[in-house]
Protein backbone atom coordinates (compact mmCIF):
# COMPACT_ATOMS: atom_id res chain seq x y z
CA UNK A 1 0.00 0.00 0.00
CA UNK A 2 1.26 3.44 -0.87
CA UNK A 3 2.04 5.79 1.98
CA UNK A 4 -0.06 8.90 2.14
CA UNK A 5 1.04 12.41 2.88
CA UNK A 6 -1.40 13.84 5.37
CA UNK A 7 -2.69 17.28 4.59
CA UNK A 8 -5.15 18.30 7.29
CA UNK A 9 -3.57 16.20 10.03
CA UNK A 10 0.00 17.06 9.03
CA UNK A 11 0.72 19.76 11.62
CA UNK A 12 -0.88 17.96 14.52
CA UNK A 13 0.98 14.77 13.64
CA UNK A 14 4.24 16.44 14.65
CA UNK A 15 4.92 15.54 18.26
CA UNK A 16 4.74 18.65 20.43
CA UNK A 17 2.52 20.64 18.05
CA UNK A 18 0.06 22.56 20.22
CA UNK A 19 -2.15 24.30 17.68
CA UNK A 20 -1.15 27.74 18.96
CA UNK A 21 -0.82 30.62 16.52
CA UNK A 22 2.97 30.51 16.85
CA UNK A 23 3.07 26.78 16.05
CA UNK A 24 0.68 27.21 13.14
CA UNK A 25 2.68 30.08 11.65
CA UNK A 26 5.92 28.16 12.09
CA UNK A 27 4.37 25.34 10.07
CA UNK A 28 3.55 27.77 7.25
CA UNK A 29 0.15 28.85 8.51
CA UNK A 30 -1.53 32.06 7.26
CA UNK A 31 0.81 32.12 4.25
CA UNK A 32 -2.15 31.37 1.96
CA UNK A 33 -4.01 34.35 3.37
CA UNK A 34 -0.99 36.64 2.92
CA UNK A 35 -0.56 35.38 -0.63
CA UNK A 36 -4.02 36.40 -1.80
CA UNK A 37 -5.60 38.96 0.50
CA UNK A 38 -5.96 42.22 -1.39
CA UNK A 39 -3.80 40.78 -4.16
CA UNK A 40 -6.25 38.72 -6.13
CA UNK A 41 -9.95 39.21 -6.70
CA UNK A 42 -12.35 37.44 -4.34
CA UNK A 43 -14.02 35.79 -7.32
CA UNK A 44 -10.68 34.25 -8.26
CA UNK A 45 -10.60 32.35 -4.98
CA UNK A 46 -14.05 30.95 -5.64
CA UNK A 47 -12.81 29.96 -9.08
CA UNK A 48 -9.81 28.17 -7.53
CA UNK A 49 -12.03 26.24 -5.16
CA UNK A 50 -14.33 25.29 -8.02
CA UNK A 51 -11.39 24.10 -10.08
CA UNK A 52 -10.00 22.08 -7.19
CA UNK A 53 -13.07 19.86 -7.20
CA UNK A 54 -13.47 20.16 -3.41
CA UNK A 55 -16.78 18.75 -2.23
CA UNK A 56 -18.38 19.27 1.17
CA UNK A 57 -17.07 17.02 3.92
CA UNK A 58 -20.11 17.25 6.17
CA UNK A 59 -22.13 14.52 4.53
CA UNK A 60 -23.91 15.70 1.41
CA UNK A 61 -20.80 16.21 -0.72
CA UNK A 62 -21.95 19.33 -2.56
CA UNK A 63 -19.18 21.08 -4.58
CA UNK A 64 -17.90 23.87 -2.33
CA UNK A 65 -16.94 26.42 -4.98
CA UNK A 66 -20.33 26.02 -6.65
CA UNK A 67 -22.05 26.62 -3.32
CA UNK A 68 -20.07 29.85 -2.92
CA UNK A 69 -20.93 31.00 -6.41
CA UNK A 70 -24.67 30.83 -5.64
CA UNK A 71 -24.32 33.89 -3.40
CA UNK A 72 -25.92 36.74 -5.36
CA UNK A 73 -23.23 39.19 -6.43
CA UNK A 74 -25.38 42.32 -6.38
CA UNK A 75 -26.94 41.74 -2.95
CA UNK A 76 -26.51 44.76 -0.63
CA UNK A 77 -25.73 42.42 2.27
CA UNK A 78 -24.98 41.55 4.90
CA UNK A 79 -23.92 38.08 3.84
CA UNK A 80 -22.91 35.41 6.29
CA UNK A 81 -20.50 32.51 6.49
CA UNK A 82 -21.12 29.75 8.98
CA UNK A 83 -18.72 27.01 9.89
CA UNK A 84 -20.79 23.94 10.71
CA UNK A 85 -19.01 22.40 13.70
CA UNK A 86 -22.11 20.64 14.97
CA UNK A 87 -20.45 17.25 14.43
CA UNK A 88 -23.11 14.87 15.75
CA UNK A 89 -23.37 12.08 13.21
CA UNK A 90 -22.82 8.86 15.17
CA UNK A 91 -19.48 7.38 14.15
CA UNK A 92 -17.91 10.75 13.28
CA UNK A 93 -15.22 12.49 15.33
CA UNK A 94 -12.90 14.17 12.83
CA UNK A 95 -14.06 17.77 13.22
CA UNK A 96 -13.49 17.51 16.96
CA UNK A 97 -9.84 16.69 16.25
CA UNK A 98 -9.43 19.37 13.57
CA UNK A 99 -10.87 21.96 15.97
CA UNK A 100 -9.03 20.97 19.12
CA UNK A 101 -5.59 20.24 17.63
CA UNK A 102 -5.25 22.78 14.80
CA UNK A 103 -7.92 25.47 15.17
CA UNK A 104 -6.09 28.07 13.07
CA UNK A 105 -6.21 25.83 10.01
CA UNK A 106 -10.01 26.07 9.86
CA UNK A 107 -9.97 29.73 10.91
CA UNK A 108 -7.65 30.57 8.02
CA UNK A 109 -10.03 28.64 5.78
CA UNK A 110 -12.91 30.72 7.11
CA UNK A 111 -11.10 34.00 6.47
CA UNK A 112 -10.32 32.97 2.90
CA UNK A 113 -13.91 31.85 2.35
CA UNK A 114 -15.23 35.10 3.83
CA UNK A 115 -12.97 37.11 1.52
CA UNK A 116 -14.13 35.09 -1.48
CA UNK A 117 -17.83 35.65 -0.85
CA UNK A 118 -17.73 39.12 0.68
CA UNK A 119 -18.63 38.30 4.27
CA UNK A 120 -17.93 40.54 7.26
CA UNK A 121 -19.58 38.45 9.96
CA UNK A 122 -19.09 34.73 10.39
CA UNK A 123 -20.12 32.22 13.02
CA UNK A 124 -18.80 28.88 14.15
CA UNK A 125 -21.79 26.80 15.22
CA UNK A 126 -20.26 24.16 17.51
CA UNK A 127 -22.23 21.43 19.24
CA UNK A 128 -22.85 22.22 22.89
CA UNK A 129 -21.06 19.12 24.15
CA UNK A 130 -17.76 20.30 22.63
CA UNK A 131 -17.10 22.68 25.52
CA UNK A 132 -13.35 22.15 25.22
CA UNK A 133 -13.45 22.77 21.47
CA UNK A 134 -15.38 26.01 22.02
CA UNK A 135 -12.79 27.17 24.53
CA UNK A 136 -9.92 26.33 22.18
CA UNK A 137 -11.62 28.20 19.35
CA UNK A 138 -12.21 31.27 21.54
CA UNK A 139 -8.53 31.27 22.44
CA UNK A 140 -7.45 30.83 18.81
CA UNK A 141 -9.78 33.62 17.64
CA UNK A 142 -8.34 35.95 20.28
CA UNK A 143 -4.83 35.14 18.98
CA UNK A 144 -5.96 35.81 15.41
CA UNK A 145 -7.47 39.20 16.35
CA UNK A 146 -4.28 40.08 18.21
CA UNK A 147 -2.15 39.23 15.19
CA UNK A 148 -4.33 41.20 12.77
CA UNK A 149 -5.83 38.23 10.94
CA UNK A 150 -9.29 39.22 12.16
CA UNK A 151 -11.05 42.49 12.90
CA UNK A 152 -10.75 45.66 10.86
CA UNK A 153 -8.15 46.14 8.09
CA UNK A 154 -6.96 42.56 8.08
CA UNK A 155 -3.30 42.50 7.01
CA UNK A 156 -3.76 46.19 6.17
CA UNK A 157 -6.01 45.31 3.28
CA UNK A 158 -9.47 46.87 3.13
CA UNK A 159 -11.09 43.74 4.42
CA UNK A 160 -12.71 43.21 7.78
CA UNK A 161 -14.14 40.13 9.41
CA UNK A 162 -15.52 39.13 12.79
CA UNK A 163 -15.91 35.49 13.76
CA UNK A 164 -18.06 34.43 16.70
CA UNK A 165 -18.34 31.06 18.39
CA UNK A 166 -21.96 30.01 18.88
CA UNK A 167 -22.62 26.94 20.99
CA UNK A 168 -25.48 24.58 20.22
CA UNK A 169 -27.21 22.86 23.10
CA UNK A 170 -27.78 19.21 22.25
CA UNK A 171 -29.76 18.65 19.06
CA UNK A 172 -28.44 16.45 16.25
CA UNK A 173 -30.75 18.06 13.72
CA UNK A 174 -28.90 21.37 14.03
CA UNK A 175 -26.19 19.87 11.81
CA UNK A 176 -28.73 20.12 8.97
CA UNK A 177 -27.92 23.51 7.52
CA UNK A 178 -31.36 25.12 7.60
CA UNK A 179 -32.05 23.78 11.12
CA UNK A 180 -28.68 25.25 12.07
CA UNK A 181 -29.81 28.64 10.75
CA UNK A 182 -33.02 28.49 12.78
CA UNK A 183 -31.01 27.58 15.86
CA UNK A 184 -28.56 30.42 15.26
CA UNK A 185 -31.54 32.77 15.07
CA UNK A 186 -32.54 31.64 18.56
CA UNK A 187 -35.33 29.28 17.56
CA UNK A 188 -36.10 25.58 17.74
CA UNK A 189 -33.91 23.73 15.26
CA UNK A 190 -36.55 22.80 12.70
CA UNK A 191 -35.32 22.42 9.10
CA UNK A 192 -36.73 24.86 6.57
CA UNK A 193 -38.45 23.93 3.35
CA UNK A 194 -36.14 24.52 0.37
CA UNK A 195 -36.24 26.52 -1.85
CA UNK A 196 -35.40 29.23 -1.06
CA UNK A 197 -31.88 28.02 -0.35
CA UNK A 198 -29.53 29.57 2.22
CA UNK A 199 -27.45 31.08 -0.58
CA UNK A 200 -30.23 33.64 -1.08
CA UNK A 201 -32.31 33.38 2.12
CA UNK A 202 -30.11 32.11 4.93
CA UNK A 203 -29.33 33.54 8.34
CA UNK A 204 -31.81 36.35 9.09
CA UNK A 205 -32.99 35.82 5.49
CA UNK A 206 -29.65 37.06 4.12
CA UNK A 207 -27.32 35.25 1.68
CA UNK A 208 -25.44 32.62 3.65
CA UNK A 209 -22.89 29.90 3.06
CA UNK A 210 -22.65 26.99 5.51
CA UNK A 211 -19.51 24.85 5.27
CA UNK A 212 -18.26 21.97 7.37
CA UNK A 213 -15.06 22.22 9.46
CA UNK A 214 -13.08 19.78 7.33
CA UNK A 215 -14.23 21.50 4.13
CA UNK A 216 -12.94 24.85 5.38
CA UNK A 217 -9.69 23.31 6.65
CA UNK A 218 -8.92 22.32 3.06
CA UNK A 219 -9.15 25.87 1.73
CA UNK A 220 -5.73 27.20 2.84
CA UNK A 221 -4.05 24.21 1.20
CA UNK A 222 -5.91 24.73 -2.07
CA UNK A 223 -5.04 28.42 -2.10
CA UNK A 224 -1.41 27.85 -1.12
CA UNK A 225 -0.62 25.01 -3.49
CA UNK A 226 -3.07 25.60 -6.30
CA UNK A 227 -6.25 23.92 -7.49
CA UNK A 228 -4.45 21.70 -10.01
CA UNK A 229 -2.34 20.16 -7.27
CA UNK A 230 -5.45 19.47 -5.15
CA UNK A 231 -7.49 18.17 -8.05
CA UNK A 232 -4.91 15.47 -8.70
CA UNK A 233 -5.14 13.99 -5.18
CA UNK A 234 -7.48 11.14 -4.48
CA UNK A 235 -9.93 9.88 -7.03
CA UNK A 236 -10.62 12.77 -9.41
CA UNK A 237 -12.61 14.25 -10.96
CA UNK A 238 -15.55 13.57 -8.63
CA UNK A 239 -13.65 12.78 -5.43
CA UNK A 240 -10.60 14.99 -5.20
CA UNK A 241 -8.53 15.39 -2.11
CA UNK A 242 -8.12 13.46 1.09
CA UNK A 243 -10.72 12.57 3.69
CA UNK A 244 -10.27 12.13 7.39
CA UNK A 245 -12.03 8.83 7.97
CA UNK A 246 -13.17 7.92 11.46
CA UNK A 247 -12.76 4.24 12.26
CA UNK A 248 -14.77 2.83 15.13
CA UNK A 249 -16.20 -0.46 16.34
CA UNK A 250 -14.40 -3.79 16.34
CA UNK A 251 -11.15 -2.82 14.63
CA UNK A 252 -7.73 -3.20 16.24
CA UNK A 253 -6.73 0.46 15.88
CA UNK A 254 -9.78 2.72 15.82
CA UNK A 255 -9.19 6.42 15.23
CA UNK A 256 -8.92 9.18 12.65
CA UNK A 257 -6.95 8.42 9.49
CA UNK A 258 -6.46 10.81 6.62
CA UNK A 259 -6.11 9.13 3.24
CA UNK A 260 -6.70 10.11 -0.37
CA UNK A 261 -10.18 9.23 -1.53
CA UNK A 262 -10.32 6.16 -3.72
CA UNK A 263 -8.58 3.57 -1.56
CA UNK A 264 -10.76 0.58 -0.67
CA UNK A 265 -12.59 -0.30 2.52
CA UNK A 266 -10.38 -3.40 2.72
CA UNK A 267 -7.27 -1.20 2.78
CA UNK A 268 -8.52 1.20 5.40
CA UNK A 269 -10.00 -1.46 7.68
CA UNK A 270 -7.28 -4.12 7.38
CA UNK A 271 -4.09 -2.22 6.53
CA UNK A 272 -4.61 1.12 8.22
CA UNK A 273 -6.85 0.33 11.18
CA UNK A 274 -5.10 -2.97 11.85
CA UNK A 275 -7.91 -5.31 10.88
CA UNK A 276 -10.47 -6.94 13.08
CA UNK A 277 -10.07 -7.10 16.83
CA UNK A 278 -9.01 -10.64 17.77
CA UNK A 279 -9.01 -11.59 14.07
CA UNK A 280 -12.73 -12.28 14.14
CA UNK A 281 -14.50 -12.24 10.77
CA UNK A 282 -16.11 -8.97 9.72
CA UNK A 283 -19.89 -9.14 9.61
CA UNK A 284 -20.99 -5.67 8.52
CA UNK A 285 -19.86 -2.07 8.41
CA UNK A 286 -21.41 1.35 8.15
CA UNK A 287 -19.41 3.38 5.61
CA UNK A 288 -20.38 6.99 6.30
CA UNK A 289 -21.99 7.66 9.65
CA UNK A 290 -25.23 6.35 11.14
CA UNK A 291 -27.25 7.79 8.25
CA UNK A 292 -25.53 5.51 5.74
CA UNK A 293 -26.85 2.05 4.82
CA UNK A 294 -24.98 -0.98 6.23
CA UNK A 295 -22.61 -2.82 3.88
CA UNK A 296 -21.16 -6.34 4.10
CA UNK A 297 -17.84 -8.15 3.50
CA UNK A 298 -18.88 -8.36 -0.16
CA UNK A 299 -18.34 -4.62 -0.33
CA UNK A 300 -14.80 -4.53 1.04
CA UNK A 301 -13.32 -3.76 -2.36
CA UNK A 302 -15.59 -0.78 -2.92
CA UNK A 303 -13.57 2.41 -3.21
CA UNK A 304 -13.89 5.20 -0.66
CA UNK A 305 -15.14 7.87 -3.00
CA UNK A 306 -18.53 9.53 -3.37
CA UNK A 307 -19.64 7.68 -6.51
CA UNK A 308 -18.41 4.18 -5.65
CA UNK A 309 -20.10 4.08 -2.26
CA UNK A 310 -23.32 5.46 -3.75
CA UNK A 311 -23.20 2.76 -6.42
CA UNK A 312 -22.86 0.15 -3.69
CA UNK A 313 -26.17 1.41 -2.27
CA UNK A 314 -24.90 3.51 0.60
CA UNK A 315 -23.06 6.81 0.97
CA UNK A 316 -19.67 8.16 1.91
CA UNK A 317 -21.48 10.67 4.13
CA UNK A 318 -19.49 12.09 6.99
CA UNK A 319 -16.63 9.59 6.74
CA UNK A 320 -17.53 7.63 9.87
CA UNK A 321 -16.77 3.95 9.32
CA UNK A 322 -18.13 1.64 12.00
CA UNK A 323 -17.05 -1.97 11.80
CA UNK A 324 -18.93 -4.89 13.37
CA UNK A 325 -17.58 -8.37 13.94
CA UNK A 326 -19.29 -11.73 13.51
CA UNK A 327 -21.61 -12.26 16.46
CA UNK A 328 -22.97 -8.71 16.51
CA UNK A 329 -26.76 -8.82 16.39
CA UNK A 330 -28.01 -6.77 13.45
CA UNK A 331 -31.49 -6.34 14.91
CA UNK A 332 -29.93 -4.93 18.06
CA UNK A 333 -27.65 -2.64 16.01
CA UNK A 334 -30.59 -1.32 13.99
CA UNK A 335 -32.60 -0.86 17.18
CA UNK A 336 -29.78 1.14 18.77
CA UNK A 337 -29.61 3.47 15.77
CA UNK A 338 -33.39 3.82 15.61
CA UNK A 339 -33.32 4.89 19.24
CA UNK A 340 -30.97 7.63 18.13
CA UNK A 341 -33.15 8.73 15.21
CA UNK A 342 -36.33 8.59 17.27
CA UNK A 343 -34.72 10.65 20.01
CA UNK A 344 -33.30 13.20 17.57
CA UNK A 345 -36.28 13.59 15.21
CA UNK A 346 -37.16 17.27 15.48
CA UNK A 347 -40.88 16.54 15.25
CA UNK A 348 -41.69 18.83 12.34
CA UNK A 349 -42.80 16.19 9.83
CA UNK A 350 -45.37 13.59 10.85
CA UNK A 351 -43.90 10.62 8.92
CA UNK A 352 -40.56 10.98 10.71
CA UNK A 353 -41.85 12.00 14.14
CA UNK A 354 -44.40 9.19 14.37
CA UNK A 355 -42.69 6.69 12.08
CA UNK A 356 -39.38 6.52 13.95
CA UNK A 357 -41.29 5.81 17.15
CA UNK A 358 -43.21 2.91 15.59
CA UNK A 359 -40.07 1.53 13.93
CA UNK A 360 -38.24 1.58 17.23
CA UNK A 361 -41.06 -0.17 19.07
CA UNK A 362 -41.25 -2.94 16.49
CA UNK A 363 -37.48 -3.45 16.42
CA UNK A 364 -37.41 -3.63 20.18
CA UNK A 365 -40.21 -6.17 20.18
CA UNK A 366 -38.37 -8.37 17.70
CA UNK A 367 -35.08 -8.01 19.55
CA UNK A 368 -36.66 -8.88 22.88
CA UNK A 369 -38.23 -12.07 21.54
CA UNK A 370 -41.77 -10.90 20.97
CA UNK A 371 -41.70 -10.37 17.21
CA UNK A 372 -44.81 -11.11 15.18
CA UNK A 373 -45.02 -12.81 11.81
CA UNK A 374 -45.95 -9.68 9.91
CA UNK A 375 -43.50 -7.34 11.68
CA UNK A 376 -40.97 -7.29 8.85
CA UNK A 377 -43.61 -6.32 6.31
CA UNK A 378 -44.73 -3.56 8.68
CA UNK A 379 -41.14 -2.30 9.07
CA UNK A 380 -40.75 -2.06 5.32
CA UNK A 381 -44.14 -0.42 4.80
CA UNK A 382 -43.45 2.16 7.51
CA UNK A 383 -39.99 2.83 6.10
CA UNK A 384 -41.47 3.35 2.64
CA UNK A 385 -43.87 5.90 4.09
CA UNK A 386 -41.04 7.96 5.56
CA UNK A 387 -38.53 8.02 2.69
CA UNK A 388 -38.93 11.10 0.52
CA UNK A 389 -41.83 12.44 2.58
CA UNK A 390 -40.01 14.75 4.97
CA UNK A 391 -38.65 18.27 4.75
CA UNK A 392 -35.03 17.22 5.28
CA UNK A 393 -32.83 14.17 4.69
CA UNK A 394 -33.23 12.96 8.26
CA UNK A 395 -36.22 10.77 7.37
CA UNK A 396 -34.28 8.93 4.67
CA UNK A 397 -31.35 8.49 7.03
CA UNK A 398 -33.52 7.10 9.80
CA UNK A 399 -34.72 4.14 7.77
CA UNK A 400 -31.33 3.25 6.24
CA UNK A 401 -30.27 1.00 9.15
CA UNK A 402 -33.51 -0.97 8.86
CA UNK A 403 -33.83 -1.34 5.13
CA UNK A 404 -30.16 -2.28 4.73
CA UNK A 405 -30.02 -4.80 7.57
CA UNK A 406 -33.25 -6.32 6.25
CA UNK A 407 -31.70 -6.51 2.82
CA UNK A 408 -28.54 -8.27 3.93
CA UNK A 409 -29.54 -10.03 7.14
CA UNK A 410 -33.19 -10.97 6.62
CA UNK A 411 -32.55 -14.46 7.95
CA UNK A 412 -31.40 -13.00 11.26
CA UNK A 413 -34.68 -11.10 11.66
CA UNK A 414 -36.63 -14.25 10.72
CA UNK A 415 -34.72 -16.26 13.32
CA UNK A 416 -35.54 -13.73 16.04
CA UNK A 417 -39.23 -14.01 15.25
CA UNK A 418 -39.23 -17.79 14.73
CA UNK A 419 -37.32 -18.58 17.93
CA UNK A 420 -38.81 -15.67 19.93
CA UNK A 421 -35.35 -14.76 21.19
CA UNK A 422 -32.09 -13.33 19.94
CA UNK A 423 -30.18 -16.25 18.44
CA UNK A 424 -26.90 -14.43 19.05
CA UNK A 425 -27.23 -14.21 22.84
CA UNK A 426 -27.63 -10.54 23.46
CA UNK A 427 -25.11 -8.76 25.57
CA UNK A 428 -26.48 -7.44 28.87
CA UNK A 429 -26.19 -3.95 27.41
CA UNK A 430 -29.75 -3.79 26.25
CA UNK A 431 -31.25 -4.42 29.67
CA UNK A 432 -29.25 -1.60 31.21
CA UNK A 433 -29.51 0.71 28.30
CA UNK A 434 -33.28 0.66 28.34
CA UNK A 435 -33.60 1.10 32.09
CA UNK A 436 -35.63 4.12 33.10
CA UNK A 437 -35.25 5.68 29.69
CA UNK A 438 -38.14 4.65 27.57
CA UNK A 439 -41.16 2.66 28.54
Amino acid sequence: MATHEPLLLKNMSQPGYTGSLADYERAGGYQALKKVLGKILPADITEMVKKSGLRGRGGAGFPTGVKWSFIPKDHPGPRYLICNADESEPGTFKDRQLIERDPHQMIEGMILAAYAIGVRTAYIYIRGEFALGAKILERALAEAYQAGYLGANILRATFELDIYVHRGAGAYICGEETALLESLEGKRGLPRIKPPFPATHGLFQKPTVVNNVETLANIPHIVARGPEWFAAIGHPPKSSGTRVFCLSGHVTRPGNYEVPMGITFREIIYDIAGGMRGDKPLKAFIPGGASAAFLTPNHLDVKLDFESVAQAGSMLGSGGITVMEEGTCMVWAAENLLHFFNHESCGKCTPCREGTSWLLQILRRIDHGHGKADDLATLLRLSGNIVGRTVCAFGDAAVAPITSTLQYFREEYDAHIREQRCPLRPAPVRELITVGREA
Partner: protein
Amino acid sequence: MRSIFSPAAQTRIPGLIARYAEKRGALLPLLWLAQEEQGYVSEEAMKEIAGLLGLTPPQVYETMTFYTMYHRRPIGTHHIQVCRSLMCALVGTDHLLGWIHAKLGLTTGQTTADGVFTLSLVECLGSCATGPMMQINDDYYERLTAEKVTRILDDLKRDGTCPLASGPFMFPEPTAK
Protein backbone atom coordinates in the same frame (compact mmCIF):
# COMPACT_ATOMS: atom_id res chain seq x y z
CA MET B 1 -36.74 42.91 39.95
CA ARG B 2 -33.39 41.46 40.94
CA SER B 3 -31.35 40.03 38.09
CA ILE B 4 -30.43 36.35 38.14
CA PHE B 5 -27.16 37.33 36.49
CA SER B 6 -24.14 38.26 38.57
CA PRO B 7 -22.57 41.67 37.87
CA ALA B 8 -19.76 39.95 35.94
CA ALA B 9 -22.25 38.08 33.77
CA GLN B 10 -24.29 41.24 33.24
CA THR B 11 -21.34 43.00 31.69
CA ARG B 12 -21.16 40.25 29.03
CA ILE B 13 -24.80 40.48 27.96
CA PRO B 14 -24.70 43.56 25.68
CA GLY B 15 -21.71 42.16 23.79
CA LEU B 16 -23.48 38.84 23.24
CA ILE B 17 -26.62 40.54 21.93
CA ALA B 18 -24.56 42.75 19.60
CA ARG B 19 -23.20 39.70 17.79
CA TYR B 20 -26.51 39.12 16.01
CA ALA B 21 -28.45 41.24 13.52
CA GLU B 22 -31.62 40.29 15.39
CA LYS B 23 -31.60 40.18 19.17
CA ARG B 24 -33.19 36.75 19.32
CA GLY B 25 -29.95 35.26 17.97
CA ALA B 26 -28.54 35.72 21.46
CA LEU B 27 -31.12 33.40 23.01
CA LEU B 28 -28.98 30.26 23.15
CA PRO B 29 -25.91 32.15 24.44
CA LEU B 30 -27.99 33.81 27.17
CA LEU B 31 -29.52 30.49 28.20
CA TRP B 32 -25.97 29.13 28.51
CA LEU B 33 -24.99 32.12 30.58
CA ALA B 34 -28.00 31.64 32.87
CA GLN B 35 -27.17 27.96 33.28
CA GLU B 36 -23.56 28.81 34.15
CA GLU B 37 -24.90 31.15 36.84
CA GLN B 38 -27.55 28.91 38.37
CA GLY B 39 -26.69 25.35 37.33
CA TYR B 40 -30.02 25.25 35.53
CA VAL B 41 -32.38 27.72 33.87
CA SER B 42 -35.07 28.90 36.26
CA GLU B 43 -38.36 30.44 35.25
CA GLU B 44 -37.08 33.76 36.59
CA ALA B 45 -34.12 33.44 34.21
CA MET B 46 -36.43 32.68 31.28
CA LYS B 47 -38.50 35.76 32.08
CA GLU B 48 -35.46 37.97 32.41
CA ILE B 49 -33.99 36.71 29.13
CA ALA B 50 -37.34 37.25 27.40
CA GLY B 51 -37.25 40.87 28.61
CA LEU B 52 -33.68 41.35 27.37
CA LEU B 53 -34.49 40.05 23.89
CA GLY B 54 -37.96 41.43 23.39
CA LEU B 55 -39.55 37.98 23.47
CA THR B 56 -42.39 36.53 25.49
CA PRO B 57 -41.50 34.03 28.23
CA PRO B 58 -43.27 31.22 26.31
CA GLN B 59 -41.05 31.91 23.29
CA VAL B 60 -38.01 31.39 25.49
CA TYR B 61 -39.55 28.28 27.02
CA GLU B 62 -40.54 26.67 23.73
CA THR B 63 -37.08 27.22 22.30
CA MET B 64 -35.21 26.11 25.37
CA THR B 65 -37.13 22.85 25.73
CA PHE B 66 -36.09 21.81 22.22
CA TYR B 67 -32.48 21.51 23.40
CA THR B 68 -31.47 18.67 25.71
CA MET B 69 -28.54 20.42 27.39
CA TYR B 70 -30.54 23.06 29.23
CA HIS B 71 -31.87 21.92 32.60
CA ARG B 72 -35.16 23.21 33.90
CA ARG B 73 -34.45 22.11 37.46
CA PRO B 74 -31.32 21.65 39.55
CA ILE B 75 -29.36 18.43 39.00
CA GLY B 76 -26.36 16.84 40.69
CA THR B 77 -23.11 18.79 40.96
CA HIS B 78 -21.51 16.35 38.52
CA HIS B 79 -23.67 15.35 35.57
CA ILE B 80 -22.51 11.99 34.23
CA GLN B 81 -23.57 11.53 30.61
CA VAL B 82 -22.88 8.08 29.22
CA CYS B 83 -22.87 7.67 25.44
CA ARG B 84 -25.36 4.97 24.48
CA SER B 85 -25.02 5.13 20.67
CA LEU B 86 -23.97 2.13 18.62
CA MET B 87 -20.24 2.84 18.35
CA CYS B 88 -19.80 2.95 22.12
CA ALA B 89 -22.34 0.17 22.69
CA LEU B 90 -20.20 -2.12 20.48
CA VAL B 91 -17.24 -1.67 22.80
CA GLY B 92 -18.81 -1.69 26.23
CA THR B 93 -21.48 0.81 27.23
CA ASP B 94 -23.04 -2.04 29.22
CA HIS B 95 -19.87 -2.51 31.25
CA LEU B 96 -19.55 1.20 31.87
CA LEU B 97 -23.11 1.45 33.18
CA GLY B 98 -22.40 -1.58 35.35
CA TRP B 99 -19.28 0.05 36.85
CA ILE B 100 -21.14 3.26 37.60
CA HIS B 101 -24.04 1.34 39.09
CA ALA B 102 -21.71 -0.69 41.30
CA LYS B 103 -20.00 2.44 42.53
CA LEU B 104 -22.93 4.84 42.95
CA GLY B 105 -26.03 2.65 42.77
CA LEU B 106 -27.43 4.86 40.02
CA THR B 107 -29.52 3.95 37.03
CA THR B 108 -30.29 6.51 34.36
CA GLY B 109 -32.15 9.61 35.37
CA GLN B 110 -31.25 9.25 39.04
CA THR B 111 -29.27 11.50 41.36
CA THR B 112 -27.30 10.30 44.37
CA ALA B 113 -28.85 11.11 47.77
CA ASP B 114 -26.02 13.55 48.52
CA GLY B 115 -26.76 15.45 45.30
CA VAL B 116 -23.24 14.99 43.94
CA PHE B 117 -23.90 12.83 40.86
CA THR B 118 -26.71 12.64 38.30
CA LEU B 119 -26.59 9.91 35.63
CA SER B 120 -27.99 10.34 32.12
CA LEU B 121 -27.75 8.31 28.95
CA VAL B 122 -27.08 10.46 25.91
CA GLU B 123 -26.61 9.99 22.19
CA CYS B 124 -23.28 10.06 20.32
CA LEU B 125 -20.77 12.53 21.77
CA GLY B 126 -18.24 12.30 18.93
CA SER B 127 -15.83 10.03 20.72
CA CYS B 128 -16.40 6.80 18.80
CA ALA B 129 -12.82 5.49 18.63
CA THR B 130 -12.28 5.97 22.34
CA GLY B 131 -15.33 4.29 23.85
CA PRO B 132 -16.74 3.44 26.18
CA MET B 133 -16.87 7.04 27.29
CA MET B 134 -18.76 9.54 29.34
CA GLN B 135 -18.96 13.29 29.64
CA ILE B 136 -19.11 14.78 33.14
CA ASN B 137 -20.12 18.43 33.04
CA ASP B 138 -17.79 19.92 30.40
CA ASP B 139 -15.16 17.16 30.45
CA TYR B 140 -14.82 14.00 28.37
CA TYR B 141 -13.50 10.79 29.91
CA GLU B 142 -12.58 8.18 27.31
CA ARG B 143 -11.34 4.59 26.89
CA LEU B 144 -12.85 3.84 30.27
CA THR B 145 -12.05 0.86 32.45
CA ALA B 146 -13.45 -0.15 35.84
CA GLU B 147 -10.34 1.25 37.54
CA LYS B 148 -10.53 4.56 35.73
CA VAL B 149 -14.22 5.00 36.53
CA THR B 150 -13.60 4.39 40.22
CA ARG B 151 -10.78 6.91 40.25
CA ILE B 152 -12.74 9.55 38.32
CA LEU B 153 -15.76 9.32 40.59
CA ASP B 154 -13.60 9.35 43.72
CA ASP B 155 -11.57 12.33 42.50
CA LEU B 156 -14.63 14.33 41.54
CA LYS B 157 -16.36 13.71 44.81
CA ARG B 158 -13.25 14.63 46.81
CA ASP B 159 -11.60 17.36 44.73
CA GLY B 160 -14.23 18.49 42.25
CA THR B 161 -11.83 17.78 39.37
CA CYS B 162 -9.99 14.80 37.91
CA PRO B 163 -6.77 14.75 35.86
CA LEU B 164 -8.10 11.91 33.68
CA ALA B 165 -10.30 14.37 31.76
CA SER B 166 -9.42 14.41 28.04
CA GLY B 167 -7.30 17.24 26.68
CA PRO B 168 -7.32 18.40 23.05
CA PHE B 169 -8.38 15.33 21.12
CA MET B 170 -6.28 13.31 18.73
CA PHE B 171 -6.54 9.59 18.27
CA PRO B 172 -4.40 7.76 17.60
CA GLU B 173 -1.90 10.09 19.28
CA PRO B 174 1.05 11.07 17.07
CA THR B 175 4.20 9.04 17.52
CA ALA B 176 7.77 10.12 16.95
CA LYS B 177 9.05 8.51 13.76
